[in-house]
């Protein structure tokens, strides 16, 4: 069994989670969250991959050519868009937290009550 893609997934999740756990800056934590999420793209596309198959587009190849799974590709596509929008929302919240409390350090922010 070829496991290399799944090791990559575990590595990306691990690096991102380590960043979130140790970071002392909200912006940096949000970037780490993006890293964690990007592991889902690798996992989705890795699960749906079929050796020797083409992309699921039949514009210039015959219709019954073996192709990789289109469902996980559609999931990855919506994943990307949602991630971008949610990141914007998180960054907006970070801006307002900095404005209100003057710090982006999650340890110091925990001492304030909204």
């Amino acid at each position, binding site marked *: *069994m*070829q*496991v*290399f*893609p*799944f090791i990559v997934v*575990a590595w990306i*999740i*691990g690096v991102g*989670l*380590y960043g979130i*756990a*140790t970071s002392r800056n909200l912006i940096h934590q949000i970037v780490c969250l993006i890293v964690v999420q990007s592991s889902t793209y690798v996992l989705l596309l*890795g*699960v*749906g*991959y*079929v*050796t020797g198959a083409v*992309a*699921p*587009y*039949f*514009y210039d190849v015959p*219709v*019954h050519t073996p*192709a*990789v*799974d*289109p*469902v*996980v*590709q*559609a999931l990855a*596509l*919506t994943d*990307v*868009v*949602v991630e*971008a*929008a*949610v990141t*914007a*929302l998180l*960054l*907006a*919240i970070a*801006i*307002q937290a900095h*404005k209100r409390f003057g710090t982006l350090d999650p340890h110091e922010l925990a001492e304030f009550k909204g």
Partner: protein
Amino acid sequence: MFFAGAAGLVAFYLWGLLGLPGFGNYPGPYGPAILRVAVAQTQATGVVSAVNFEYRGFDTVGEEFILFTAAAGTAIVLRMLRGEGERSPVDEARDRDAPPTSNAVRTIALLFTGPVVVVGWWLASHAQTNPSGGFQGGVVLATAFILIYLAGAFLTFSKLSPTDVTDAVEAAGAGGFAAVGLAALFTGLPYLYNYLPLGQIPGAVSSSGTIALISFFVGLEVAAAFLLIVSELLEQTLLIRHGGR
């Protein structure tokens, strides 16, 4: 503490991994089933778009509204707070040597604006043909407005993309998608049923019925949502100041 948690995660991950099919021989029933019937059923050669806008159309409606909510949430979080006013930034170091936008940046940004709009529309309108669609096209369309911001001043940018219009376009995009689905209900068909003529040639722009239409609305929605987010962030940086005007 972290490493104890990480060890637990690794254990769970390995456990999950053992249940997965090996890399490169995906056996799942859905993908191959859709690949067998999609082109014949929808006349769309882009099967990913067919999955997004047809087979999983209902999920995509939900996903569309996540995007809508995130954009609205950003606008609400970045509203003008009490004790804040809008004014242009005052240069506090007047004697420093601040270079104006160079002519090279301006020219290149303006040169790219037209092609970027064309590419965006092309992507948004070819979902049924090739690896494109409303999501990708919408993001590219929003980029055109950001190029205008790069080329000129913020005020030109906000004049070209007034928030009222962006809001309306975003709502039209999200509502249009839902309405395409609802229209099927009125004729007694299931929600999001593909009721438009499918065309004869697989992969032609005019084929695939509602897939193309929904992709168009998604393009509008995504472009407007990203434009709204970018202009809210720019407004926050450039206009809103603590302590009034």
